[in-house]
């Protein structure tokens, strides 16, 4: 039995205990804390010199289709697991117990966590997919029952959207599976990668031509169909422009811990999936025809969504949009298709997860206290809640990629990766990637604009009378957010700590 199974089962056990009548909050916090400890222990026992997937355990589930319940973790997954457990603990601690159905509330949170952990600990693409979906319903319930604002619409939107996206993804996965030679098909990520290396994947790629009234409008190979399906599926899950509108609304309506878990951890599933199942597998000749399209879309994320973020008048929506915007950077790193970009993207996955979790935790706290996140109604809060302001300042600075925080190192690698992408020789300058990089770097300015504007509106300026007696942030949330920020700082100062963990898993020729 793999210790990873314990990692998945612990939150579920916490949820079950909570549902069975134990004090839900305590059960949840205990489970999350134990899980974090377990994860750190795993990290400590990972054999770095050996590399690759470890803690493997496998149990055939559907042998006829090459599906087995295989758990295992390499550096990248360990990084993601660490992110998941850290954010889970923070989310559970930050969560304010609602008046009704407390046990369901915590159980939902823990189920989201279990789903994310399961996905990151799966080596089998099929179970990787399945675990992600496990979190769908808890999210629906969390937003629908304990959300705020237009919660019903938001809950519907995120659920139906993600359901659609994940089924597109499922089709893509099946397509990938079917492009292996008969008899050697498998959903094991390692096997898929091996096939890709040996050239047996897409070995008999067929061209499909689509024509209407004799006019052939599309000619596309099976591999390209699969590539597009995977990218579209993962893209919807990650809120790739223009399929992003579910995210801000959902995060704005979700209770803070749900937003933390979803934006911080679960949404990373799609990008992680691309790192695992798309980048190492598709040879450039299949992928490159779509580069321009993907670049345009991700620039939509950075530039257009960035502008949309600026126009927001409420903190929660703004944070939601900002998280959508940052996905654009990660995509840029992935599309760059090279070592630097890939590492940058993976690095940003974790950095962004931590920073957005901290931000959502704080915004949730703020909403609890003030009942509003409207910039127009807030102002000058640093006067009464200085610690709050300080923490928010740190988190905001982290999120806009200030050096010293982990996000910066990630963005840096992404920019360098993208800038050097697609250049056969250093002599030909200004191909699509470089133009995209130039625009993407402007995103750094955009994110500074909205973050500072928000900080200015909420914490600076004259204190609004209504908030004269606002209470300072409670110790536990403070500790959680400070912990997240500390992690960001540590990783930001010594990015090599994290890179040593993840980069062996991200070797590209």
């Amino acid at each position: 039995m793999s210790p990873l199974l314990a990692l998945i089962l612990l939150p579920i056990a916490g949820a079950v205990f909570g549902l069975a009548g134990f004090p839900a909050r305590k059960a949840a916090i205990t489970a999350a804390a134990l899980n974090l400890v377990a994860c750190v222990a795993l990290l400590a026992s990972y054999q770095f010199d050996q590399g690759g997937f470890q803690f493997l355990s496998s149990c055939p589930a559907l042998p006829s289709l090459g599906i087995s319940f295989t758990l295992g973790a390499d550096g990248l997954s360990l990084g993601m697991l660490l992110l998941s457990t850290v954010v889970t603990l923070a989310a559970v601690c930050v969560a304010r117990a609602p008046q009704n159905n407390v046990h369901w509330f915590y159980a939902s949170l823990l189920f989201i966590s279990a789903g994310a952990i399961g996905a990151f600990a799966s080596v089998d693409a099929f179970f990787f997919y399945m675990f992600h979906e496990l979190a769908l319903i808890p999210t629906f319930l969390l937003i629908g029952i304990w959300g705020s604002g237009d919660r019903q619409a938001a809950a519907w939107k995120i659920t139906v959207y993600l359901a659609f996206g994940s089924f597109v993804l499922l089709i893509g996965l099946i397509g990938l599976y079917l492009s292996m030679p008969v008899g050697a098909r498998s959903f094991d990520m390692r096997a898929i990668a091996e096939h890709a290396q040996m050239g047996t994947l897409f070995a008999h790629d067929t061209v499909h031509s689509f024509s209407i009234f004799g006019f052939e409008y599309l000619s596309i190979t099976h591999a390209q169909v699969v590539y597009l399906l995977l990218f579209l599926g993962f893209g919807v899950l990650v809120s790739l422009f223009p399929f992003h509108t579910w995210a801000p609304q959902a995060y704005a309506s979700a209770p803070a811990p749900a937003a933390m878990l979803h934006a911080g951890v679960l949404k990373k599933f799609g990008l992680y999936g691309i790192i695992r199942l798309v980048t190492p597998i598709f040879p450039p000749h299949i992928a490159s025809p779509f580069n321009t399209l993907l670049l345009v879309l991700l620039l939509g994320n950075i530039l257009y969504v960035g502008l949309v973020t600026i126009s927001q008048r409420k903190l929660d929506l703004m944070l939601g949009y900002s998280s959508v915007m940052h996905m654009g950077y990660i995509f840029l790193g992935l599309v760059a298709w090279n070592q630097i970009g890939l590492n940058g993207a993976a690095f940003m996955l974790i950095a962004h997860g931590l920073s957005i979790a901290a931000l959502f935790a704080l915004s949730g706290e703020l909403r609890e206290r003030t009942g509003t996140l409207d910039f127009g109604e807030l102002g000058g809060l640093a006067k009464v809640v200085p610690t709050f302001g300080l923490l928010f300042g740190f988190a905001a600075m982290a999120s806009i990629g200030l050096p010293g925080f982990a996000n910066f190192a990630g963005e840096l690698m992404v920019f360098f990766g993208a800038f050097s992408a697609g250049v056969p020789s250093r002599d030909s300058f200004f191909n699509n990637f470089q133009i995209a990089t130039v625009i993407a770097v402007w995103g750094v300015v955009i994110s500074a604009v909205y973050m500072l504007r928000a900080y200015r509106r909420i914490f600076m300026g004259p204190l609004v009378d209504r908030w004269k007696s606002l209470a300072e942030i409670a110790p536990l949330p403070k500790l959680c957010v400070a912990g997240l920020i500390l992690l960001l700082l540590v990783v930001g100062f010594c990015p090599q700590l994290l890179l040593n963990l993840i980069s062996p898993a991200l070797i590209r020729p």
Partner: protein
Amino acid sequence: MTAFLLSPEFRVVFLGIFLLMLDSFTSANKRYIAWAGIIGLVVLFGFSFLPGLPEGVFPAGFYLSDPTAIFFKRYMLLATILTIALALDYSRVYEEFIPAGRPGAGLGEFYILPIFACAGLMWLVSAADFIMIFVSLELVTMCFYVLVASMRKNLLSLEAGVKYLILGALSTGFLVYGITWVIGLTGQTSLEGIRGVLPIVPQGYQVALMFGLGLVLVALGFKVAAVPFQFWVPDVYQGAPTPVTAYLSVASKAAGFVVLMRVIEPFLIVPGLEQKIVSVLTVLAALTLIYGNLAALPQINFKRLLAYSSIAHAGYLLVGVASVGADASGPAVGFYLGGYLLMTFLAFLVLVHVGRVTGGDDISDFNGLGRRSPVLALGLLIAMLSLAGLPFTVGFLGKFLIFEAAMQSHQYLLVVLGAVTVACGFYYYLKVVRAMYWQPVVADAPDIAVPAFTKLLIALLSAAIIIFGIYPQPLLAMLR
């Protein structure tokens, strides 16, 4: 001869006759009849795992005992057991609506007719001959005519009965006429014989053969609720007694699919025909997917919603049937049906109990169920998630296998349509979840007490949904 008479179907018939006698000649409490039926069927279900009868005791070409048939015989037995269990819980409502001289009169038949239907269904899944198909199909249909209309003081039940009667008879007409053409042109009644004759049937007969087969497809399409032959489904499902609805939507549909796959199989060896059959099935599947899923969106009545959902599932199953090119399509359809049984019965089980207390079957009657009865709510939650196709449930794996088969036979259109409609499905299934967990309880609504046996059933069905959703191998092994 004894072996022949002791075939599983006859055992079921004998059980039915025994119970009928019990019902007529003793004044036993009708519940005992139901229990006796359940126990008898469970025993027979157990028998089905014993080494089977030797091949060859059955007339050649009539009766198949292949793994599919055996699997579906168990399937029908299980469905019948669950139906009777459901009927037990439903009996209080049922009693109100049957005119009876003494308390419980008519209940006996209500418990016993499903057993005869079960025999018919078991024959049907073994049938390898058009006459056999016709006769057993009619046996099943006859049971259902009676069962659907049996709550005679309930106008909806009567109306449903008439609708089912007329449209069912219409489809029988088409079936018979289609069979006529097929038999007439090939001179063979058995599928085996037809397979043998088809390659030497003159080219010119193909059109007429397609005409006949098309009419048979129409009738089977009626059974499985394929658009455009689905019109009876919502009305009949809504009006029929709930256990009957469940039985109808599971067993009758499953049998329809088994027969459908058996019937088209011989015709697929002729290349010209195969392509046409597949494209017609594709059209049917696409229409069914779209209609079932889309029309379900605005529903507010839960039973009707389940009816549309049943159409939608027929769509996914038809995708599997239309993927006959893939070797995995048969097991995929079988597995899907297996999962469909579990989740549908779970949903109806909860509906029976909620309906018993609230007296209605609108979605709004489920408001606050999470508070009123956590067990029922959890059961229904699992059922809905499985119907919607969420991973770790058997419903998801079913869809997965179907999509896999479809991708393998390059049915890209259907696959994409499937993905889109799954998203619709999430909407309407989650509407129920929303009602249970989001919506407030109606003021002073009492908690719903659930009998222990029902709790056990809910637990068993939920567990099966999840276990087979993670480890489907046992089911799949039965199908191969």
